[in-house]
């Protein structure tokens, strides 16, 4: 019994070390201050994981009018896929780009041009 308890303790210690490494490696900045106000963490495109993108269809022409890129704190994808839940402290950031649509060598392309809006999202549970 004692052996099991000690092994369990060791496992939890190792798990903490692994989690700590992931955080230290990604260096995500805190998004909330002491009063609970949120801000967009600086440098997030360089350390957050890209989660996905979708484009709003344009009303009066072909192509799309905006592209939304969604990012998550480092480690979110692996954690979600293993547990089925977003861990406490997960931050999602949705970037909104105006787009331009043009005929390129690969076909008619819509791509983001101007970065116009980046709201921070509250902690998910």
């Amino acid at each position, binding site marked *: 019994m004692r052996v099991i308890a000690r092994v369990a303790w*060791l496992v939890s210690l190792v798990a903490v070390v692994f989690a700590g490494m992931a955080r230290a490696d990604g260096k995500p900045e805190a998004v909330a201050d002491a009063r609970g106000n949120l801000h967009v963490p600086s440098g997030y495109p360089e350390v957050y994981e890209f989660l996905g993108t979708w484009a709003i269809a344009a009303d009066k022409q072909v192509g799309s009018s905006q592209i939304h890129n969604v990012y998550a704190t480092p480690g979110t994808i692996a954690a979600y896929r293993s547990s089925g839940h977003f861990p406490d402290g997960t931050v999602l950031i949705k970037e909104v780009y105006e787009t331009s649509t043009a005929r390129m060598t690969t076909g008619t392309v819509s791509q983001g041009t101007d970065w116009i809006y980046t709201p921070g999202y509250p902690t998910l549970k």
Partner: protein
Amino acid sequence: MKRRQLFLGATLALCGIATLVSAQSDETNTAPARGRYLPEYTKEGDLVLPKNWRSWVYVGSPLTPDALNNGKAGFPEYHNVYIEPGSYEIYKKTGVFPEGTIMFKELQRTLPQQNPDGSRTEPSGRGFFPGAFNGADVTVKDTKRYANTGSSWGYYNFNHHEPKAPTATLKPISECGFCHQASAKKDEVWTQFYPLLDH
């Protein structure tokens, strides 16, 4: 005896965790990037599919759905483009893509269309929504290795469907590189589409 049991138990627990960690990274390709990841080649000289690109620095997603291209776009999907983070750090300081830079373009189809322009309607509105992954293209900068192709970059295709190929053979410049040379803004990279790299 107790000490031996403890040692055995701890070893097994560590192995279990190590397996779990590597299984996760294989599945999602999101293990955190450490140091700089440089291209790996087979002994035949083919490029090995880079690891953990989904935790690299994402730079942007041009979109060329079939519905905007007479039903047959060259790349009928989102092109999610990533740059290897160690190379990105150097580029950010110097403005030059260093030797060994890897750009990873993961292709992702759009969900089936509901409207004539190829879009569909979801709770957030009418638009183009990402669906299944659909293969990948990768470029590697190496001015010596690719010198005799006429380019500083090597161009590779890891399938235009899933699963992605484990390795890929260098493409002749007439298939990919010529277009990058003609129209990409900086050093055969389409920096004009990626605000993070356009400086």
